[in-house]
């Protein structure tokens, strides 16, 4: 085997070790760059890790399935991280309880806007029906959106891509957009980030402000709940 570097590559590229290492190292790099730019929105670590790893997979002809065999160990932690949101919520419970009314009204307004706007815009753009259905749950976290897409007989993996793209665009745009609206209330800003851009928005919110992060996490959890009911309803009413 010593004289054949190709067989070593074949061995490594099929093992979880290589792709787990690549995921962690590339992210560590993009995160360091993000930190060095003082968390500039365009230096979003997820966005840059995504295209760098994606390009690497394409260049080496590696399938997403073999990549995911390694990266699934990271992906798995999404569930426990959602549970972990209980801790910042617990520590800030007084502020959360005192904002319960604006939170619930904003939740309703925001989740309806998220679903209705994407369905109407996608129809306007003349996208095929199965694409419209797969985009509809794009504001909720990946696992839930994939479940919704499945129940509509749409494409769950396209739904996951729409979720990630939405999350990244939301995380990039939220700070400049909010600065422009002049809203300095970090409860409201965080809540909007989590509602529109789920976990990636929440990760962004935690970078900006702890309170924003807490409210973002709540919005993300509540929106997962509301959107599960809302998407089937909106699809029946709005899709041709």
């Amino acid at each position, binding site marked *: 085997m010593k004289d054949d570097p190709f067989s070593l590559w074949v061995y490594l590229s099929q093992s979880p070790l290589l792709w787990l290492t690549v995921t962690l190292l590339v*992210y560590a790099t993009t995160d360091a760059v993000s930190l060095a730019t003082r968390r500039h929105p365009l230096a979003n*670590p*997820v*966005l840059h890790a*995504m295209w760098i*790893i*994606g390009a690497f*997979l*394409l260049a080496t002809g590696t399938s997403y399935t073999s*990549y*995911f065999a390694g*990266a*699934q160990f*990271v*992906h798995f932690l999404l*569930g*426990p*991280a959602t*549970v*972990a*949101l*209980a801790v*910042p*919520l*617990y520590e800030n419970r007084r502020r959360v309880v*005192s*904002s319960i*009314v*604006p939170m619930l*009204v*904003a939740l309703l307004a*925001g989740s309806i*806007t*998220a679903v209705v*706007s*994407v369905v109407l*815009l*996608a129809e306007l*753009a003349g*996208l*095929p029906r199965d*694409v419209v259905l797969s*985009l509809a749950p794009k*504001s909720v976290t990946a696992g839930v959106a994939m479940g919704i897409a499945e129940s509509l007989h749409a494409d769950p993996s396209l739904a996951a*891509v729409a*979720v990630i793209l939405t999350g990244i665009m939301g995380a990039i*745009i*939220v700070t400049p957009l909010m600065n422009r*609206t002049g*809203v300095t209330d970090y*409860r409201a800003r965080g*809540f*909007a980030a989590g*509602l*529109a851009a789920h976990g990636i928005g929440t*990760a962004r919110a*935690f970078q900006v402000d702890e309170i924003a992060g807490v409210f973002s996490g709540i*919005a993300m*959890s509540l929106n997962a*709940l509301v959107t599960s009911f809302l998407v089937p309803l909106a699809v029946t009413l709005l899709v041709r």
Partner: protein
Amino acid sequence: MLASLGLILLCQLIGEAVVRGIGLPLPGPVLGLLLLLILLLARDRFAVLAHGPLRNDGVETASKGLLAHLSLLFVPAGVGVVQKLDLLASHGIAIVLVLALSVVVTLLATVLTFRLVSRLLKQQDAR
């Protein structure tokens, strides 16, 4: 640390089991979040619960460790874009524009509703 991670996983496990068991339209981890929150609140009331991971900030420290790298956890799903390159080649610009416009409208609708209601309730923000 290990017991704290175990507790977090246990909350998720119970959450998933209940959701599947009675067919709730809710992600299992979200129910796990509620469960952990209830445990933390109960601990403050009943001293018996203040053991193992629920003592000395055990589960708090572990949770903050997980949340510190929340962005990383989205990378594997994000790389899934490579499977959809043909679709993105044919409809990519429309899809990206639709998602971008929708996210801006959603952010504005949410933040403005929140502020409006909170102003109507005459809540002064502490910051």
